[in-house]
């Protein structure tokens, strides 16, 4: 009986192709999550007060602006920054996908609770906005992202890049999110200019 080395078989080609595809999928997923979390962190940091008000409006800690609200705000900000950094550097991806799933599920549940109590909210999730958040859309968005995090968690064991943290990716993504934030603020300034001209 003759045994061919695995490399020459169809099965090996399939494994190679699958590994390559998993690599690309992980790259795309971590790219999406790093952009999402870094931009969300930057937006919340630069519109910190509306973010505090949003936490109060969710009414989970209390209805007063006190140290507990600040603690919750800094915890969410810290988590988002940490997740943004880990996803863009491609380090600790397993833990990052679990944390992302938990965080996004929590956000979905909070929006669901708010939707059921029929209280409108302005979450300022991605920067300054004078419109109320479309809660149904926010629930769907967060649930889809949580699902993507689960997929990422499932794919992640066959991909690891501990040796080369992608510092360049982090630099590029954070620069992109800064540009987006600038675009949001610029848009708001243009709106004010228009208001001033009309007035």
């Amino acid at each position, binding site marked *: 009986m003759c045994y061919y080395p695995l490399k020459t078989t169809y099965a090996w080609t399939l494994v190679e192709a699958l590994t390559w595809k998993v690599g690309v999928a992980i790259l795309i997923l971590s790219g999406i999550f790093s952009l999402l979390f870094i931009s969300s962190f930057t937006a919340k940091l630069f519109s910190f007060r509306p973010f505090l008000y949003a936490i109060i409006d969710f009414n989970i800690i209390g*209805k007063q602006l006190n140290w507990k609200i600040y603690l919750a705000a800094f915890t969410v900000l810290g988590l988002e920054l940490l997740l943004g950094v880990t996803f863009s550097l491609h380090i600790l991806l397993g833990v990052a996908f679990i944390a992302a799933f938990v965080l996004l599920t929590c956000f979905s549940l909070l929006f669901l609770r708010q939707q059921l109590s029929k209280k409108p909210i302005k979450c300022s999730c991605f920067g300054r906005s004078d419109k109320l958040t479309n809660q149904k859309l926010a629930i769907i968005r967060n649930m889809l992202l949580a699902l993507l995090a689960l997929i990422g968690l499932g794919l992640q064991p066959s991909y690891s890049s501990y040796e080369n943290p992608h510092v360049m990716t982090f*630099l590029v993504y954070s*620069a992109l999110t*800064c540009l987006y934030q600038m675009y949001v603020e610029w848009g708001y300034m243009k709106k*004010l200019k228009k208001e001033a001209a009309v007035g």
Partner: protein
Amino acid sequence: MTIAIIIWLLFVTAFTLVLRYIRVRQQQLKSTILREIGLSISPVTALLGVGLDDIGYMRHISYIHEKYGEIPIIVLYKGPAWKADLMQRKLSSSVQVIVDEEAELLRKLELTDLPSYLITDQAYRIREHSRIFDAV
């Protein structure tokens, strides 16, 4: 890699400076809007936005008086004129009620989360912008 990090640091510094400029410009534009609205403003004035269903406006007014002293307050009321009239009768002369049924002024002044207030000076600069929460 070092060059990339240096470029990134320069970019972030430039971003912070540009954002600071945009924020200053936004403040100037808000002052212009406030001036164009044509409210007579004393050295320190509070502009308080109150919604139609808000029955705690007396509490909000005393909260502002407690925090900033006996400053004049302009209440921008998002409701019908007759209700604003009733409100005005209950209040002292240092509090002026202005009807803003369509919330046009409130929107322009970014007082959209009611109740919230602005503290302005005579040069129409906004010194503080905050919300008032239920159990103050």
